[in-house]
């Protein structure tokens, strides 16, 4: 190999030229042979020899990847927060809803106290299209259904949190769209609910948006490396 310092054909025992002693060779990262400094590729195996600029760029990219991974992990934690809040919301809504329904049924029962069951059913059928037993089943069914819907949503968010390990972008995008939709639906059912915990809702929307961005950045970094 020709020493880039003294320009003579020399042996490189430990990366130093046997004639001038200059540290003018580096190890090939692939075949571990000696390559003269300044050469871009190993002439024995064709591997790329990283230059100083390459090493700085690689360190910078590695830092970028770490930051992105950190942001992706933060996004995943927010998905878990949404899942836990939704599950708790489901359980809470069940117990508070059931006690509210029982209270309303007791009040209705008092209002109908002078009537026979047949008269009561006839009047309810006229007003609501349901018998007394159907009203009870319907109201309790609605509460159970709401609880089941919220628990189902909580389970979906847990699934997204899990999926974000392997596909952070897709999971975060679905979480963002789903959360925004759920907020809107609950506002349509009860407009006053929109303002309840508005700060937390806005924080979650922002966190999920940045999770989408972090997920996409992570995906782009992988693709850029491949390119």
């Amino acid at each position: 190999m020709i020493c880039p310092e003294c320009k003579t054909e020399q042996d490189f025992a430990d990366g130093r030229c046997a004639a001038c002693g200059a540290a003018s060779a580096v190890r090939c990262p692939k075949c571990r042979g000696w390559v003269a400094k300044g050469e871009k590729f190993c002439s024995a195996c064709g591997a790329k020899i990283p230059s100083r600029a390459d090493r700085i760029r690689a360190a910078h990219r590695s830092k970028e990847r770490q930051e992105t991974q950190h942001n992706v992990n933060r996004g995943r934690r927010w998905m878990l927060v949404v899942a836990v809040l939704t599950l708790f919301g489901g359980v809470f809504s069940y117990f508070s809803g059931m006690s509210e329904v029982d209270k309303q049924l007791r009040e209705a029962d008092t209002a109908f106290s002078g009537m026979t069951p047949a008269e009561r059913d006839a009047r309810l059928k006229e007003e609501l299209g349901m018998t007394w037993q159907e009203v009870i089943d319907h109201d309790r069914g609605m509460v159970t259904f709401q609880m089941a819907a919220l628990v189902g949503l909580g389970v979906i968010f847990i699934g997204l949190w899990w999926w974000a390990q392997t596909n952070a972008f897709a999971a975060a995008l679905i979480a963002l769209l789903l959360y925004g939709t759920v907020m809107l639906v609950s506002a349509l059912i009860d407009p006053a609910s929109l303002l309840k915990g508005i700060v937390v809702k806005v924080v979650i929307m922002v966190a999920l948006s940045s999770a989408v961005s972090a997920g996409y950045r992570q995906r782009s970094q992988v693709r850029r490396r491949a390119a």
Partner: protein
Amino acid sequence: MDPAEPAPPASPDCISCGRPLKPEAAFCSACGHRRGDPPVDRAALVQAKVRKLQRIESGWVGIRSLIAIYFCLLGGAALTSVLGKATDDFTAEAAGSGIIAFIVVIAALRHRRELAECSRTAGFGWKGYAGIVVASLAIVFVVHTYVHGLDRLFKLRMESELNPFSGRHPAWAFLLYAAAPALFEELGFRGVMFGLLRRSLDAREAILLSAIAFGILHLSVPMLITHVPLGLYLGWLRHRSGSLYPSMVAHFLHNGLVVAGGTWNLWPGS
């Protein structure tokens, strides 16, 4: 070639970058080209890399557009729901269809490049379309069974989502519940959104994400169980055929059969 003939001498210069090659080198130390390989078109390689990086950038722009379109459609669905409480079903549904159509048409004009290819071809032959017709019957039967099962499980006495408008000709129900969604939802979800997702995602992910967006935009948690698989099926049709029309036909048949079932009590348990 005569085996006795000596091999031609190895080229002294790299045929890819033109730098001198060392006699014992198997690779050029300047460009990494293997001795003896045909020359590499470096300009084409650089162009391919630039194109790939441009695709990554345009992919992110596509995702942002998709989120914007989704939330516009969500606003439209919310407005329809508010109108439904303030007016009668027919007015709300007609206004809602108008709003969704307006948003989708604006999005389609803005992203017409995503629609150029899939709107030019029929996708399937007659056998494919016949398969869609048969599949629609099976799908509607499963959906109907699920909705009635849910109704009975929670004793909700839910009214069917696609009941005919009272006092109006059934053609209105077919127009607003079957034709309009088949046209505009397909243009929106399987046309624009699928195209925007495909800029940066592979087909499987694009089908899944457009199906989930389609499912959750119907604003009903129990309907997620039916609409996400339906969206997967419609997305698969779009991908498999490379055309928008098979998914439009499948969507029209599905909604049309549900409307027909509600109008003429065709389904068991109606």
